[in-house]
């Protein structure tokens, strides 16, 4: 019997939960193989040092140690360096990044030797006795100093640390920056942060030596990209290398990469003929896993005297770190398309310079480029409002670009798929009781209370759904941006989806089941969703950049349509009618005018499988596969409002309210979308108030554990109040836009704007990020004319 209930748009409970709730998850460190060895990496204690000598002999002699090698001794393992797949300009300067360095340590934590042993403890103990002689060099730590001629060099052969310069090339009228009635020049900095998934990274490689076959279980977002690139690094032919992403305990960009330890596990499995496991400690994670942000922006804002925005001209310095990881040079560029925000401007300019430093590599962290951009735009809009003496809500209201339902060119050169900024904005203000808080702010200012109230707005637009392959090609990215799905209707009536996205908490199993259930007239529980294994779902481009539903979901829709087309042919054959006489209604094919003549998809799947009576030339089995290459990105948008209370005596901030009104197009599963917003906003609040990676003047990591790097707990988080507007995307058949990064993009300026707004009457115009009590207190003190 056909299932007539519809599931898309419902908060269907997650299919993923049962194993995770009962301790039966398959995280990498839960996997054990016979004869498995453990890898430990010997890491440089210095930020910048020439390697004079590596002596592993003592480690090799320890009982339980199977092998120990220096970078030089492993050189023969590599068919190529670790991958960087986004050389964004023709003249970008790059150097080879080897899994274990041979010449210099370029950041604290850089791997200089490895040990494999029978147990984790022995491997760690043996790593301690590897003797490395270093000649310390002056580290490059400051972006502006490092970019200058004459600076010490991170990579000597490149002749400079300023290794890449990219410009958007400008759009619209550049004259506005010289002629506009109001011209502001502002500077904003965003410190480094680390993504901090609660599961650190980990990898386990196995080998069948006689076959030359390898399997790598790795805590990754990108099994497919890892397969082709690790094949290039290790020389293991692609068809002999299987990558499995088992349950992945969060990622946030940390696992959108291909790391030395993954290549090492494979190479050392080849060398020893045994399985090799490596599990990252939290302190190692903070030292070596790719970090994000680390940028300085110089911004020119052009506007009218009424506060109507006319343009943004932005020059950015971006910290690349010690090596290019997978996407490093392209991350600032991802922000380079949204420095106009949701506003109707006349002039646009963006350029950035990437600088190598003796710190951990940077790469994508949730939002990747777009949080940096949105922070600058939304902080600058508030600065403009103060400059022209207008309410920041009013400046936004008169500056929003008009709505449109079809794709429309923007000054920055790409087309925005659909937009309707004002309703989300007005709804957010209404939900947050904006006017009432303005009154309360006035009253508290009047009475000079110690605790002042600030209202922070953040209206954002995001470029999500990475990405149209032709645009990626034009931007010199090495791969495509399409996605894939295979659908098989089993003879027993069940359905199997093999999908190319690789979730790590986003609930793809549930949502993809909902979509298939509605299209095929089955129940979501009768759909299984397989992913994260290059042998089971060989086609795909993985999960990052808020792409999964808008591209992977679209691929699924196309595959389902193919299934239904094939099923229709078979139904017409069995019911002895023309295909045009059939309609698919209430979950089944029905003959128009003869409703008793029905075929369900499960019935047709059985017929296609037995193949006893098929139309001429009809291929047995009800299976279809599809890929989808989007014509455009999707462009979510919205407005967030933060109400903050700032203690003007201590600088402490307390968030009273946090309202988010987002528009991610058509919603497949409201509970899951809300969950993505909750997590995204929390990530952004953490960035605004607490989190900062710090190195000292010698390049030592100061925030190397969770006791110094402040990932907030439930106590620090406010309750989030959410609503949505729905502006369907014309980019894909589901009308969806991405939502995984929106909260992280919107929240930091909402929070910092609220803090500045709370103390702006005291003369404060800026507070650095994270806005710690100390920073807020200092800003107040300086505004009051210094002195304690």
């Amino acid at each position, binding site marked *: 019997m056909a299932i007539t209930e519809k599931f898309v748009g419902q908060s269907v409970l997650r299919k993923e*939960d049962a194993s995770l*709730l009962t301790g*039966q998850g398959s*995280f990498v*460190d839960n996997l054990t193989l016979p004869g498995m060895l453990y890898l430990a990496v010997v890491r440089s204690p210095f930020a910048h040092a020439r390697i004079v000598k590596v002596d592993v002999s003592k480690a090799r002699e320890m009982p339980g140690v199977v092998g120990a090698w220096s970078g030089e001794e492993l050189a023969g393992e590599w068919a190529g360096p670790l991958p960087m797949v986004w050389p964004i300009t023709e003249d970008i300067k790059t150097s080879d990044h080897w899994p274990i360095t041979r010449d210099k340590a370029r950041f604290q934590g850089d791997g200089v030797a490895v040990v494999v042993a029978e147990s984790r403890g022995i491997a760690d103990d043996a790593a301690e006795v590897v003797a490395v002689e270093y000649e310390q060099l002056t580290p490059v730590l400051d972006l502006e100093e490092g970019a200058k001629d004459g600076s010490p060099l991170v990579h000597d052969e490149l002749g400079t640390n300023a290794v890449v310069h990219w410009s958007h090339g400008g759009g619209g009228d550049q004259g506005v920056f010289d002629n506009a009635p109001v011209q502001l020049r502002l500077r904003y900095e965003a410190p480094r942060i680390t993504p901090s998934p*609660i599961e650190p990274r980990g990898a386990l490689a196995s080998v069948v030596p006689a076959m030359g076959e390898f399997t790598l279980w790795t805590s990754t977002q990108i099994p497919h990209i890892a397969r082709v690139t690790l094949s290039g690094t290790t020389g293991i032919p692609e068809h002999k290398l299987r990558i499995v992403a088992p349950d992945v305990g969060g990622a946030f960009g940390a696992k959108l990469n291909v790391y030395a330890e993954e290549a090492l596990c494979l190479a050392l499995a080849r060398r020893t003929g045994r399985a090799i496991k490596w599990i990252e400690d939290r302190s190692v994670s903070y030292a070596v896993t790719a970090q994000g942000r680390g940028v300085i922006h110089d911004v020119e804002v052009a506007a009218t005297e009424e506060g109507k925005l006319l343009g943004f001209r932005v020059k950015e310095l971006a910290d690349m770190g010690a090596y290019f990881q997978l996407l490093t040079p392209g991350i600032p560029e991802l922000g380079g398309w949204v420095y106009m925000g949701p506003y109707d401007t006349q002039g646009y300019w963006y350029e950035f310079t990437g600088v190598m430093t003796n710190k951990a590599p940077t790469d994508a962290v949730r939002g990747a480029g777009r949080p940096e951009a949105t922070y600058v735009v939304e902080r600058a809009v508030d600065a403009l409002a103060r400059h022209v003496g207008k309410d920041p809500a009013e400046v936004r209201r008169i500056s929003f670009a008009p709505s449109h339902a079809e794709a429309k060119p923007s000054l920055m050169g790409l087309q925005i798929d659909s937009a309707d900024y004002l309703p989300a904005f007005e709804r957010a203000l209404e939900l947050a009781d904006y006017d009432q808080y303005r009154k309360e702010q006035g009253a508290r200012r009047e009475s000079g209370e110690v605790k002042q109230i600030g209202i922070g707005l953040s209206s954002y637009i995001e470029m999500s759904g990475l990405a149209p392959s032709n645009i990626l090609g034009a931007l010199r990215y090495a791969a495509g941006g399409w996605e894939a799905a295979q659908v098989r209707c089993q003879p027993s009536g069940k359905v199997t989806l093999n999908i190319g996205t690789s979730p790590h908490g986003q609930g793809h199993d549930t949502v993809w089941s909902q979509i298939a259930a509605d299209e095929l007239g089955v129940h979501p529980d009768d759909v299984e969703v397989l992913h994260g294994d290059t042998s089971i779902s060989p086609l795909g481009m993985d999960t990052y950049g808020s792409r999964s539903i808008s591209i992977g979901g679209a691929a699924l829709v196309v595959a389902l349509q193919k299934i239904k087309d094939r099923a229709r042919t078979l139904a017409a054959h069995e019911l002895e009618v023309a295909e045009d006489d059939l309609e698919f209604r209430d979950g089944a094919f029905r003959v128009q005018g003869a409703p008793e003549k029905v075929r369900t998809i499960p019935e047709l799947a059985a017929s296609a499988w037995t193949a006893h009576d098929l139309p001429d030339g009809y291929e047995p089995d009800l299976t279809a596969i599809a890929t989808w290459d989007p014509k455009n990105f999707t462009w979510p948008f919205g407005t967030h409002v933060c109400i903050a209370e700032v203690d003007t005596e201590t600088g402490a901030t307390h968030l009273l309210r946090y309202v988010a009104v987002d528009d991610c197009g058509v919603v497949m599963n409201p509970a899951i979308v809300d969950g993505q917003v909750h997590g995204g906003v929390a990530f952004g609040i953490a960035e605004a108030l607490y989190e900062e990676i710090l190195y000292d003047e010698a390049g030592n990591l100061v925030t190397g554990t*969770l*006791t110094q790097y402040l990932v907030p707990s439930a106590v620090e*988080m406010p309750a989030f109040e959410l609503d949505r507007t729905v502006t369907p995307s014309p980019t894909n058949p589901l009308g969806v836009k991405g939502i995984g990064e929106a909260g992280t993009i919107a929240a930091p300026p909402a929070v910092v704007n609220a803090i500045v707004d709370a103390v702006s009457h005291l003369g404060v115009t800026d507070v650095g990020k994270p806005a710690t009590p100390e920073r807020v207190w200092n800003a107040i003190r300086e505004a009051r004319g210094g002195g304690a």
Partner: protein
Amino acid sequence: MARVSVTVNGNAREAEVEPRTLLVYFLRETLGLTGTNVGCDTSSCGACTVLLDGESVKSCTLLAVQVEGREVTTIEGLATDGEMHPIQDAFHRNHGLQCGYCTPGMIMATASFLKETPDPTDEQVRESLEGNLCRCTGYQNIVKSILDAAGTMSGAKA
């Protein structure tokens, strides 16, 4: 090596371990109970939270030899006869987990907390989670799950 005898999820277990073995690795690697996760090396994240004689502890803060003769409950021991515990069920119904890595620790901390505080306020729930970090949910649905579980559990008792 040291011998450890301990009751885990109602079963008597005994093993030889290196004296430096932490309880969490004893559970995970010696006994094969991998539901208890490790997220840090400073006892900050709470992913490894278990019950020791009914009270929540971070199993990375104890040596296996320190729990000699005592009772440990892990996430694997919470469901009974294949039925999820009301806390597990509440996390499921309220979308209280995304990647699921912090979840066993969250649930075990909650089991201990709700025993002491059967009818908590939102604020008490948040304070009870101070030692358990989640990076996916922003805690909103975790708090909601725990309040829901408290309602279910006190309703079941009444």
